């Protein structure tokens, strides 16, 4: 990639903060704010999955961490009365900690075995949420208040969402800023020493271990960063819907996070973002097709895959020398 990182971030920020709101304003499609907020949050979670792909693991368990993150934030807000904006990083950290405990044994698995264990993990998270008293079991946690004001020495940094005229827009802005930050961080990781080491894991784990790479540490590190992203995405969703249920994130979500990465392209940092946009937005756009919606949607998915098996970004247009095997 020839474009310098800061420039890329600025362009991305301009697009999501100026161009998109302008387009929405012109077209009057206010409902797209929520759809795009979802895309932003889901693509954060997908970015995490992409990072685990980067160390050569198929992760179909991100739904577990989005659920844990959602519950962590909901419990901290409702039971301890904490400010949502503080619970957001905490939810991520809790997920990261849990993922270290779980990751240490299961990251030894590879290929489909790891994929399947993570798939089971999502179901484990759902059943645990149903069984525990702190999560309020089947009844879920409802009536979670809107994010409140975050101030620092009396200066308001983030206003109280409850008093805003248009909380939809506020959620949108918060989500896209988080998304840009996450992808900038991801880009930084991939193009650092850590990223090179991760690539060595993806290609041949034994070989990289034999030349002195601490593979176990690297794997757990990447996995916990991935889960952190899942956690904050989940927490944000919960604050939008103001409720969380054991079924808020399920196996389907985990599978979708993975599909987003495939569709966008596993070799490209922005792949999961584009994949989420196409998969999630595509479904919404096809809503007028009524009962044929799923048929057309899946046909297009299959055709896309047959046409571009390496993801959307593998189109020659985007593919500037980043060819890898």
């Amino acid at each position, binding site marked *: 990639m020839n474009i310098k990182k800061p420039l890329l971030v600025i362009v991305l920020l301009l697009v999501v903060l100026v161009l998109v709101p302008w387009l929405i304003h012109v077209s009057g*499609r*206010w*409902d797209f*704010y*929520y*759809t795009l907020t*979802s895309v932003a949050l889901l693509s954060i979670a997908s970015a995490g999955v992409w990072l685990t792909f980067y160390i050569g693991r198929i992760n179909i368990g991100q739904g577990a961490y989005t659920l844990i993150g959602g519950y962590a934030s909901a419990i901290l807000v409702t039971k301890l009365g904490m400010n949502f904006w503080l619970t957001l990083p905490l939810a991520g950290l809790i997920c990261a900690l849990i993922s270290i405990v779980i990751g240490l044994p299961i990251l030894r698995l590879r290929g489909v075995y790891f994929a399947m264990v993570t798939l089971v993990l999502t179901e484990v998270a759902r*059943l645990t949420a*149903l069984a525990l008293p702190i999560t309020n*079991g*089947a*009844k*879920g946690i*409802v*009536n979670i208040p809107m994010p409140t004001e975050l101030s620092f020495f009396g200066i308001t940094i983030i206003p109280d969402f409850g008093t805003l005229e248009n*909380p*939809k827009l506020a959620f949108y802005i918060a989500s896209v800023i988080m998304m840009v930050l996450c992808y900038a961080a991801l880009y930084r990781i991939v193009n650092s020493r850590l990223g090179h080491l991760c690539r060595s894991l993806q290609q041949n784990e034994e070989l990289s271990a034999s030349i002195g790479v601490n593979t176990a540490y690297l794997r757990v590190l990447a996995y916990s960063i991935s889960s952190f992203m899942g956690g904050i995405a989940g927490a944000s*969703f919960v604050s*939008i*819907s*103001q*409720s969380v*249920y*054991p*079924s*808020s994130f*399920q196996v*389907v*979500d985990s599978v979708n996070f993975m599909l987003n990465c495939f569709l966008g392209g596993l070799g490209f940092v922005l792949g999961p973002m584009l994949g989420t946009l196409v998969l999630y937005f595509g*479904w*919404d756009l096809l*809503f*007028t*097709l*009524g*009962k*044929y*919606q*799923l048929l*057309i949607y899946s*046909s*297009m998915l299959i*055709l896309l895959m*047959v*046409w571009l098996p390496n993801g959307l970004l593998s189109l020659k247009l985007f593919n500037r020398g980043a060819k890898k095997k």
Partner: protein
Amino acid sequence: MNKRLFLKTAIAGILSVGLFSGVALAANETLKIGFVGVTSGPAAAWGISNQRSMETRAAWINETGGYKIGDKTYDIEIVAFDDQKDPKRAIAGMEKMAQEGIHYVVGPNVDDGAAAVRPVAEQNGIMYFPYAFPKSLYEAPASNAVLGMVANYQSGPAIYKYMKDEKGVKKVAFVAANESDPLSQRTGGVAAAKALGLEVVSDSVTYQVDTTDFTPVLLPVVRSKPDLLVLSGVSPANAPQLIRSARELGYTGLISTETAQDALVLKEGAGDLANGFISVGGASTPEIATDMMREFVERYTKMFGEYNDESNTKVYALEYILETLKADPAGITDAAAFKKIMDTFEAPNPYMKGDAVLKYVGMSSFGQKRQVAVPLVVNVYKDGAFETLFVAEVD
């Protein structure tokens, strides 16, 4: 080949779009009513029966010249959104309804979806009619949700009391799927049974919704020897299998549920073993159905090829919305006017014989009138059809 496949799909796509945009132009103004629910995946049956009842009724109204509200006549258009039983999608669906300028939405079908759409509905002045039971949706400060059917904590006690008095039931066992809705319903059911002085012999057995063999699930339940086995919040797909397994294990007592079922599904899935199964239904049993109900079933069958008995409970929400709007036409653009008229609204029930009325209830359960008054019709299955066991009312 790929190109050809692509072409074919493209043509199919264009054709279907063409079909949809080719809806006849009508002289009447259009009144859009929304539906947000699940019409694909495992729980598709719930949403589809729901959406189809609405579409049947709308087509019927439009065919007979439209619906008169105030001094205008409207054609009814149903705008449906498939939320795939995902609360995140349900929010998107509600946003879409707001975008379309819709103020009245039927759905979502499950607890988590109904809770998730609440902020959007309240911000956009949308009244919605979920088929979910949590009381927090209908109690103040929530005010935009109206329960579209009888909740299990209302029907359960009535059914158990009937069983206790008429059938001499003393011991009850509960089985539920390990999902939010059925588990919440089980908790409610157990409380109701205990309040009536019944002995609850088993209330901890759960199953995964994807279970293909219920014999191991039911073995410990049947061994606890209940007189009545309650299938809490059972989905129509699981009910026949559970009944069959219980009977095959030698269980001879009564079996009941508080959800709506379909007679054909029971017949195909359990055959004669389903005889005596008690469930909650609408008003289509011959004893109480009016000519209008019969015509509805007829039209539904003609339109979609096959009737679904679950629709009996789902025919009401649209009727309530339209009748209430008729009572105060200001409601068409303003949900506040709708809420105001809800307290005093009353109209005859066109689907049930007798002097039943459409009105809003819920004072005793929610402290405000946020539930449609539908008759609590308890059915018993017999040889491929339902018979009315008894009819009760909810306040």
